[in-house]
């Protein structure tokens, strides 16, 4: 008799169990002292040589992992628990890195297309052939159209110092290609935060254990910072409050003392409401404001111009709940905010981020251990010598060559009217795509696909999987995974720089991000540059050739990182305790000339994404947000055993919306707007507010079980943010119908 577990757990199953067990003697039968039933052979995979290697997915945890290698084969991975942030566990995805590396669908030799673009017919070729065909074509493009007709496309498929820029960028600088502005990620908040406090960096997250109040604002730690959660819980165990602001009910939101669920992108209004309350209840830090800010009087005036009625209407957050939040926050001695990257990917991203940091300023929450504002802790990364590491000086015309914003890749590849930043550009004739999969990850995927399919566009893809982009290529060359090359990695949450030892030799005929571009450079006739002849170590040493205090003050050297596996860069501690803010006035600017110059209100600007949508999109009934989920890293892990079956093609919608539309769990739902349509599986819950739907970001159309032509980014906008030229994926609206 099968007992339903949940029915059993509700208490009604107990009698059934008695029935089932009647006649049997309860107790320990077959008692034995010998350790039987274990499977010691399962430990064999943990025996071998250990290699320390840093995960290079685009994730703020930047895990340092330990790999076991037996006879040249990677057999096991675990966290490098010597590094405090790690503990013993990788994340759910990193745990499956052996399966990721030895995935059955890896591309292991060069191929050229043997049919029409996208037809799926391939012919195996040799590397010699591949180099000859690629270099002949690129040379003829250069001769006819100029080297600036060649565009690299890449982002965070490999975040290593060599893998991301050190290797590939040398090649593109040497040939003089068009420049790709890689601003998809964090740059709206960079502008909003620097306009206020002069920095987007923050205090050491290890000190979160000392806070009295942790605020996760637009941040889903479970998906993007899971190793930080244990430190939040340590603070909570000592009595700290956990406050969360998120339109999604994230796991942390469910566990919070108070969770506010605003309508997406209304954070400026919410922060304003909290500021009004702090002022009214005199929970602001007058001494801090006097000493460290300018423009407080203008701020007070601006706060008066916005009513609680309007805030409640715009945000959808009941004011009593907002007051409750503001009270706990305002009365906390030490409060630290963790701002997520996702929320600023909106047309008003810079302005929202600024308002939140202003709130933290009038609360006086800077400059002590246990308080501060954490967004992007690039203390290590920003201090590397990027221009030397990438060999920017070998580009023949670095100051005059054109730029393309990666978020606008579809616009740049437009068949008849290519543009960048709203201006016409010279057509692009070749794209070399590596560390990326723009048809899946860039917004307006159908337009990306049309661009990639152009007959007059030569598309080379360096990847280890047949991605949505690779399937449209003229030539595919096999890349290694990050584990098949040596590198280093910089953290952007904790202040670490970590080693990334080569774990195994390249699989099949694959070539890593330096070897491929170094050899292609030789075929292109740019191998004579000394910068194109170096080894991995020299590239790393070039990056580490820096006078920045983060490295100098800590005395960090190349040899030390190699020997000690990880180091911690220097930073002022407590962060910003000096009261020296890197703004024009040297103070926190509650009134900002920078914001005024950008065309916005110099104190608080209440603009919303809907204000900037075309009427056709604005009138659609649902906002669509497309954040990260824990079981994927951007477009990675879609093929990986043990991970790929976790759902990534669902649409979450609110119970009330579902009821109104007659939608149930597991129904197939079509999302549609003027850019395209995609079919996903419905998940009905209170995890999203009424009027908002959520789909995971960057899923592949090739893998969509509901719709081989549909992915999340078919729907997303490629218009840029208010400042910083950042992507604004979440400023997307859709209609939904049951199919």
């Amino acid at each position, binding site marked *: 008799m099968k007992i339903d577990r949940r029915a059993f757990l509700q208490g009604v199953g107990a009698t059934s169990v008695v029935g089932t*067990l009647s006649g049997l003697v309860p107790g320990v039968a077959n008692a034995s002292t010998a350790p039987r039933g*274990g499977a010691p052979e399962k430990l064999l995979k943990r025996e071998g040589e250990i290699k320390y290697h840093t995960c290079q997915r685009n994730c703020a945890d930047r895990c340092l992992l330990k790999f076991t290698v037996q006879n040249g084969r990677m057999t096991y991975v675990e966290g490098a628990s010597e590094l405090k942030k790690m503990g013993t566990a990788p994340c759910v995805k990193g*745990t499956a890195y052996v399966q990721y590396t030895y995935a059955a669908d890896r591309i292991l030799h060069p191929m050229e297309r043997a049919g029409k673009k996208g037809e799926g017919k391939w012919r195996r070729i040799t590397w010699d052939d591949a180099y000859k065909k690629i270099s002949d074509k690129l040379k003829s493009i250069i001769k006819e159209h100029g080297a600036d007709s060649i565009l690299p496309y890449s982002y965070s498929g490999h975040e290593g110092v060599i893998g991301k820029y050190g290797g590939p960028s040398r090649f593109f600088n040497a040939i003089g290609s068009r420049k790709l502005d890689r601003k998809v990620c964090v740059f709206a908040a960079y502008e909003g935060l620097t306009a206020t406090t002069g920095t987007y960096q923050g205090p050491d997250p290890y000190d979160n254990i000392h806070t009295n109040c942790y605020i996760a604002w637009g941040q889903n730690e479970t998906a993007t910072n*899971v190793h930080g959660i244990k430190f939040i819980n340590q603070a909570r165990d000592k009595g700290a409050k956990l406050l969360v602001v998120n339109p999604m009910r994230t796991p942390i939101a469910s566990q919070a003392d108070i969770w506010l669920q605003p309508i997406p992108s209304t954070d400026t209004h919410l922060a304003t409401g909290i500021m009004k309350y702090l002022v009214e209840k005199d929970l602001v830090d007058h001494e801090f404001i006097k000493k460290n800010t300018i423009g407080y009087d203008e701020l007070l005036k601006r706060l008066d111009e916005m009513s609680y009625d309007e805030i409640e209407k715009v945000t959808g957050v009941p004011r009593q709940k907002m007051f409750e939040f503001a009270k706990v926050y305002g009365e906390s001695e030490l409060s630290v905010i963790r701002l997520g990257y996702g929320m600023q990917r909106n047309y008003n991203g810079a302005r929202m981020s600024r308002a939140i940091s202003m709130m933290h300023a009038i609360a006086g929450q800077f400059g002590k251990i246990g308080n501060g504002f954490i967004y992007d802790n690039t203390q290590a990364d920003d201090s590397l010598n990027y221009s030397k590491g990438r060999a920017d000086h070998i580009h023949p015309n670095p100051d005059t060559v054109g730029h393309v914003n990666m978020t606008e890749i579809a616009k740049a590849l437009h068949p008849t009217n290519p543009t960048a930043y709203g201006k016409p550009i010279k057509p692009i004739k070749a794209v070399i795509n590596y560390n990326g999969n723009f048809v899946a990850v860039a917004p307006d995927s159908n337009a990306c696909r049309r661009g990639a399919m152009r007959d007059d566009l030569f598309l080379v893809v360096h990847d280890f999987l047949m991605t949505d982009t690779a399937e449209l290529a003229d030539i595919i060359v096999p890349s290694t995974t990050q584990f098949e090359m040596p590198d280093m990695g910089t953290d952007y949450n904790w202040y670490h720089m970590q080693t990334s030892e080569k774990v195994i030799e390249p699989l099949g005929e694959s070539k890593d991000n330096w070897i491929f571009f170094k050899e292609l450079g030789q075929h292109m006739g740019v191998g004579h540059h000394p910068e194109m002849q170096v080894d991995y170590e020299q590239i790393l040493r070039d990056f580490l050739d820096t006078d920045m205090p983060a490295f100098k003050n800590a005395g960090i050297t190349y040899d030390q990182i190699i020997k000690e596996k990880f180091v911690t860069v220097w930073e002022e501690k407590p962060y910003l305790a000096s009261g020296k803010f890197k703004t024009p006035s040297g103070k926190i600017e509650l009134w900002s000339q920078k914001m005024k110059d950008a065309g916005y209100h110099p104190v608080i600007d209440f603009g919303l994404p809907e204000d900037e949508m075309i009427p056709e999109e604005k009138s659609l009934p649902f906002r669509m947000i497309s954040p990260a989920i*824990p079981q994927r890293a951007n477009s990675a892990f879609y093929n990986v055993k*043990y991970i790929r079956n976790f759902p990534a093609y669902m649409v979450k919608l609110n119970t009330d919306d579902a009821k109104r539309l007659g939608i149930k769990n597991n129904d197939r739902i079509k999302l549609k707007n003027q850019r395209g349509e995609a079919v996903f599986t419905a998940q009905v819950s209170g995890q999203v507010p009424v009027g908002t739907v959520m789909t995971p970001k960057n899923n592949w159309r090739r893998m969509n079980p509901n719709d081989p032509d549909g992915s999340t980014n078919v729907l997303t906008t490629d218009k840029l943010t208010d400042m910083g030229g950042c992507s604004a994926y979440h400023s997307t609206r859709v209609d939904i119908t049951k199919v």
Partner: protein
Amino acid sequence: MSVNHKVGFVFRQENCVGCQACTVACQIHNELPENHRFRKVDRYEVEHKDGSKDVWLSHSCMHCENPACLMVCPTKAYHTREDGIVVLDREKCDGCGLCTEACPYSAVSIREDDGKADKCNMCVELLDRGMQPACVSGCPVECLKTGNLNETLKKPSASKEGIGYTDSITKPNMVIIKERA
């Protein structure tokens, strides 16, 4: 029949974020087929005064004091070790499936690849070497541990009650820790 040093899973449910790392770490250590899981993580929507919230239950074999699997097994493939861990000797299993039906926690299932029952044995091969089960060392939030049950249950925050989990006639040996209101 009582065992002094009994080991069990100790789960701080209030800190679990449902990431599924425990499930995958277990599958990889145990070299399981992709869709065979010893440990699962279920989401429960729980009503609170100000709306519903998500709570996750990470669960596998409860290593019961009165294991239903052991009692119904005609081939005596199950036994309980001195430390209370219920282990399955797969060589003795003939795949009859009675245990999968008897277990009130859905902790045993028949593997598609060889037709025999399989379940969590708390990674005894690791425990016996002073290491932790794969799920425990694979939890990045550190909310799943193992512990001496008799000691652990003395804590005021410990009980055999949680969301989706309650004590029962089989006397399951997972302890829930609840420190926060």
